[in-house]
């Protein structure tokens, strides 16, 4: 088990995660381990959904406070701890958008996009494509955004996404397919 301190990357297999969750349920101080592991993931998911640093930080804080307060209620049944945590995060997002608070997008997000390769021209192209994709993804329905981000950014399984979104697996697959198809259409200049 490779568990280390704040900020370092470590892997959790299911058995170890169960043990850590169980420990956190008995002694909430152990919640720190789960926090360290999941903070970057939850932050990434929320940030890509809201694209606003201040709002993302608020929602991430809310998510972890709720997780800590309710960890006693979490039970290993059909769902993983990750899907439980993402569900809390998604509920925060849904609540935020239900309030219809206008959110200003950060301008800086596009500058930080990574690009690979040595060729400067290729880098510029990649950067341009990614920036366009990020803009396009925001034109999709919230459910399509969620499905695409959870699948391709967070690497979650279809089953986990189905739990998080309270849909069946077929519906999640359809959301992913339609989301990608819509993005392709828009990239090709469609409506």
């Amino acid at each position, binding site marked *: 088990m490779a568990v280390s301190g704040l900020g370092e990357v470590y892997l959790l297999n299911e058995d170890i995660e169960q043990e850590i969750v169980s420990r956190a349920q008995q002694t909430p*101080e152990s*919640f720190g381990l789960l926090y360290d592991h999941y903070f970057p993931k939850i*932050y990434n998911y929320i940030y890509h959904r809201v694209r606003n640093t201040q709002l993302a930080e608020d929602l991430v804080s809310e998510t972890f406070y709720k997780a*800590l*307060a309710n960890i006693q209620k979490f039970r290993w049944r059909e769902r993983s701890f990750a899907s439980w945590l993402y569900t809390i995060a998604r509920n925060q997002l849904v609540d935020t958008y239900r309030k219809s608070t206008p959110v200003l997008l950060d301008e800086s997000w596009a500058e930080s996009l990574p690009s690979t390769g040595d060729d400067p021209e290729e880098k510029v192209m990649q950067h341009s494509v*990614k920036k366009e994709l990020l803009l396009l993804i925001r034109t999709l329905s919230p459910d399509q955004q969620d499905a695409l981000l959870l699948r*391709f950014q967070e690497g979650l399984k279809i089953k986990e996404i189905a739990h998080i979104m309270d849909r069946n697996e077929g519906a999640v697959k359809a959301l992913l397919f339609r989301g990608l198809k819509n993005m392709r259409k828009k990239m090709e200049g469609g409506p």
Partner: protein
Amino acid sequence: METEKDKILEELYLPLEDLASGEETDKLKEIAWHLVDMGKAEPSSSFQSELRDSLLREVPQLQAAVWSDKFTNKWLKQFYRDLWGPTSRFRSSFAFIAATLIIVVMAVFSHQPADPPGRVADPQRPAYEEQTAQRGIHSATPGKISPGKKPDSEETGDPAAEETWPGSPVMEGPMGTPEVVGPQSGEAVFPEEEILESGFGQNEPPIPEKPKFQIEGEMRDFHLAGAVILSPLHVGDTEGEKSPHENTQAVLRPNSKYATATTPEREAEFGSATWAARMLKNEGFEVRSGDNLEITIQETLQGNFAEIFYQSGGKGSGHPLMVLLCKEPGTILGYYYQEKGSYNKAGYYPLMTPAQALKAQQLTVFSSSRPSLIFTDVRFEFSTFHLDDGRTQQESVLPAYCFTGRETISDSEIKICLPAISR
């Protein structure tokens, strides 16, 4: 050669391939890859560590909340808040009382020879452990359980009911008259060891000699304003071709009969909902989903007793509430119904059994041959009957057994409602 990108896409995208053609799949995979390769959002390290610290600072409060959540009963939560909350008015008073009690208890125990903890001082009474082992009937379904509530001893006048274990669960029957029951599985269970160690077992009330039923305090008698006139039944042929058969015999034969004390595997635990449903089924009443069924139990030196409260259709149905008094394993001691004051004075009135009600009525059946009536199902409802006082006839709403069955010769379905009241 398969690249890392292909591997990732294969893993991520595989479930979608059945939704798109080959060429389209490749294009969609390319977009998916851009999403995978988009890079992760970078939080500020100060925010991550500040949030971590802030969360860990919350842990003591959360632990306190978790502790209080264990007392899921709202009353206990409120009590806890009242005593220790920041706005508590009783905090100082409680601290003073608690300190005084501790001093008094210590003074008393320092001057008394100590009994073994958990042992009952009265040698004629078995120890608490033995008593609990002898019991086995603590479950009662699905009454409301609330901790620490004392029975209304003033009303019952039963000195045995005036004592109970502090914190022991109390079952409220449908009439809100609480009945003390022993420890059972549920929210407000206190471990036996705790009870014994704290000496609470010494205050356990003795087992009463005979049962005291909840309904006893409100028993009434029924007085009809005249004789019930039943409409004749018509069976089989058209009305004009039939001849009347007076005093036709009718019998109740419920579809199923359950043994209550034959072989262990066929028995249902005395006092359980299954047991009560079987008791009712044996009498012709089919307990259905949505019906209200509550049971209270009590143990006495004469044996174990139960009151079954049954209302078909549930509490809001308008059907009358029927009460069966039973003795273990399955003897019915009496039938009663609760009148809420709509048709008569409020209280509990004795009823006949369904079989007695069938025998008591003189049925007149019009049929081409002597009929044979066999009923299998009974519903307990209010029904309107004609009463004849010798001078006038009037309508009266009475609790009734409404039977469903068949006339065996013509195989006609028969439904009749008969008064259920015992006079």
